[in-house]
C-alpha cells in the first residue's frame, strides 16, 4: 500500500450528477454503457459526498453529467456544496435552465457556469448535439446567464466537422462577455471512440487550430483567457493526463463509483469503490484503482528511464489501454512509443474517411 503521507489531497472533484441529457453529442465522455436513472445517488448522499470532499481537501467542485440541470435537486446540491466550502462550477448545455432557475442558483451561491458549444450556428450545433432547436434555446439561456452576472466560460469542443467555425466561436465568446474559453479538440474516449472516423481532425486542421488559438490569445490578452486541448493523435508527446493519476482530481459517477478519471472504467483490470460503501478519504488514499498508477513503479520502458516521466507521467492510461491494449504502456501518442508510427498512420487514415456517419450518444 502507498503510504498516505506521500499522497497529496485532491484539489478538484467532478460530480457526474446524472447521465440523462437532452443532447446526444457523438463525442460525449460518458461511458457507452450508462447507468439507469433509478441508480442515481439521491440528494442527501451527494450532500454528504460534498462535505467529505471538502474535508479531504477538494476546493473546486465541477457539477456535470449528462446534463446536471436534468437533476430536479440541482439548486439544493449547489447550496449544500457552497455550505461545505466548495467552489461550485456548473458544466452545462444550458438546456433546461430557465431565468427562474438561474435566479435560484444565484441565491444558492453558484460560483461559475461553463457553457458547452456544439457549433456556432443552428445548423451545425443542432446536428452535432442531435437536438433540433437546441441552439436557439442555448443562446437564450446564455443571455440569461450573462444577465444574471455569472462569470462564464464557453467550452467549444471542436473536431473535423466544425473546426472551420473556430474563429467564429472565439468571437462568440467575446460577444457573450465570457472571461474564459476552452477550446478542446475532441478527446477520443467514451462515445467519441465510436466516432473517430467521423470526427478525427486532419493534421492540417490540427495545426491551423493551434495557430488560431495562439493568435487569439495574444490579441485578446486581458479580455478572454483561452485554455486549449490540442489534437491528441497528431501530437508528439502525450497529455499530462489528470495532472497525474490520483494526485489532483477524482470523479464520482451518477451511481456513486469513484474514478481516478472519467474514462477509467475502460480499463478492465481496475476495480472501483462506491461512496455508498466507503468514505471518500479511504477510497482516495487506499482504493486500488487510485493506487494502480500512482508514482512510477508501474511504468514500463521507454517511460521508466525517460526524463519526461515527471512532466507527463507516461500520458493517458486509458489511451494506452485503447491503442496498446495495455494500461501500463507508454501512451502511444508519444514519439518514443513503439506504436507512435502506427498512431500517426491511424490518425491520418481516420481523418480522411469520407463516408463515416455520426453515431449519436444514447441517454439511459
Amino acid at each position, binding site marked *: 500500500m502507498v503510504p498516505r503521507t506521500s499522497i497529496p*489531497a485532491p*484539489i478538484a472533484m467532478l460530480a457526474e450528477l446524472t447521465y440523462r441529457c437532452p443532447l446526444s453529442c457523438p463525442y460525449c465522455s460518458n461511458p457507452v454503457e450508462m447507468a439507469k436513472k433509478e441508480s442515481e445517488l439521491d440528494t442527501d448522499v451527494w450532500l454528504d459526498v460534498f462535505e467529505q470532499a471538502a*474535508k*479531504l*481537501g477538494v*476546493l*473546486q467542485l*465541477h457539477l456535470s453529467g449528462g446534463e446536471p440541470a436534468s437533476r430536479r435537486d440541482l439548486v439544493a446540491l449547489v447550496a449544500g456544496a457552497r455550505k461545505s*466550502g466548495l*467552489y461550485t*462550477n456548473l458544466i452545462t448545455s444550458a438546456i433546461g435552465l430557465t431565468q427562474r432557475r438561474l435566479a435560484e442558483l444565484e441565491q444558492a451561491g453558484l*460560483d*461559475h457556469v*461553463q457553457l458547452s458549444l456544439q457549433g456556432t450556428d443552428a445548423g451545425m450545433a443542432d446536428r452535432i448535439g442531435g437536438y433540433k432547436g437546441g441552439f436557439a434555446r442555448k443562446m437564450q439561456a446564455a443571455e440569461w446567464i450573462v444577465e444574471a*452576472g*455569472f*462569470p462564464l*466560460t464557453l467550452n467549444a469542443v471542436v473536431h473535423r466537422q466544425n473546426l472551420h467555425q473556430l474563429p467564429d466561436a472565439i468571437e462568440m465568446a467575446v460577444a457573450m462577455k465570457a*472571461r*474564459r474559453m476552452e477550446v478542446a479538440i475532441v478527446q477520443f474516449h467514451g462515445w467519441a471512440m465510436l466516432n473517430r472516423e467521423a470526427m478525427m481532425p486532419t493534421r492540417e486542421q490540427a495545426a491551423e487550430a493551434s495557430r488560431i488559438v495562439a493568435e487569439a490569445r495574444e490579441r485578446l*490578452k*486581458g*479580455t*478572454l*483567457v483561452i*485554455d486549449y486541448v490540442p489534437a491528441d493523435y497528431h501530437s508528439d508527446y502525450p497529455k499530462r493526463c489528470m495532472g497525474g493519476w490520483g494526485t489532483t482530481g477524482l470523479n464520482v459517477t451518477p451511481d456513486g463509483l469513484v474514478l481516478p478519471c472519467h474514462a477509467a472504467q475502460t480499463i478492465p483490470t481496475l476495480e472501483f469503490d462506491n461512496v455508498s460503501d466507503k468514505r471518500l478519504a479511504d477510497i482516495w488514499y487506499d482504493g486500488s484503482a487510485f493506487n494502480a498508477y500512482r508514482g512510477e513503479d508501474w511504468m514500463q520502458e521507454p517511460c521508466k528511464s525517460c526524463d519526461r516521466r515527471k512532466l507527463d507521467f507516461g500520458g493517458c492510461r486509458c489511451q494506452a489501454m485503447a491503442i496498446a491494449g495495455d494500461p501500463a504502456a507508454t501512451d502511444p501518442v508519444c514519439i518514443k512509443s513503439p506504436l507512435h508510427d502506427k498512431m500517426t498512420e491511424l490518425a491520418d487514415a481516420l481523418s480522411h474517411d469520407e463516408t463515416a456517419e455520426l453515431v449519436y450518444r444514447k441517454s439511459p
Partner: protein
Amino acid sequence: MTQIANDAIPVIPRGVRLHKDTVRDLWVLLAPERTINLDPIGLAILNEIDGQRNFGEVVARLADAYSAPVDQITGDVAEFLTGLSDRRILELT
C-alpha cells in the same frame, strides 16, 4: 516594468474569492477552474482590495504597514495585480 495608474481601482470580480484552505493550511484565491495559492505578500495585497481604494491608496497602505519604500511596493503590487488581471481574475476599473 508593469505599470498601473494610481487612480485605477482594483476589483475582485464575482466568481473569484479568497478562501482559507484548512486542509493545506494556506490561503487561496478560488477562480473559475483555477486555484491560486497565496503567499503572505499576495494575501496582504488582496486584503487591501475592497473595491473602493485605488491602486495608489493600496500601495500607500502596504508601504506604511510594512515600512517599505513606495517605489518598491508599487512595482511588486503592479506585477502581482497585472498577472491576475491578464488572467481575468482581477479587474482594474
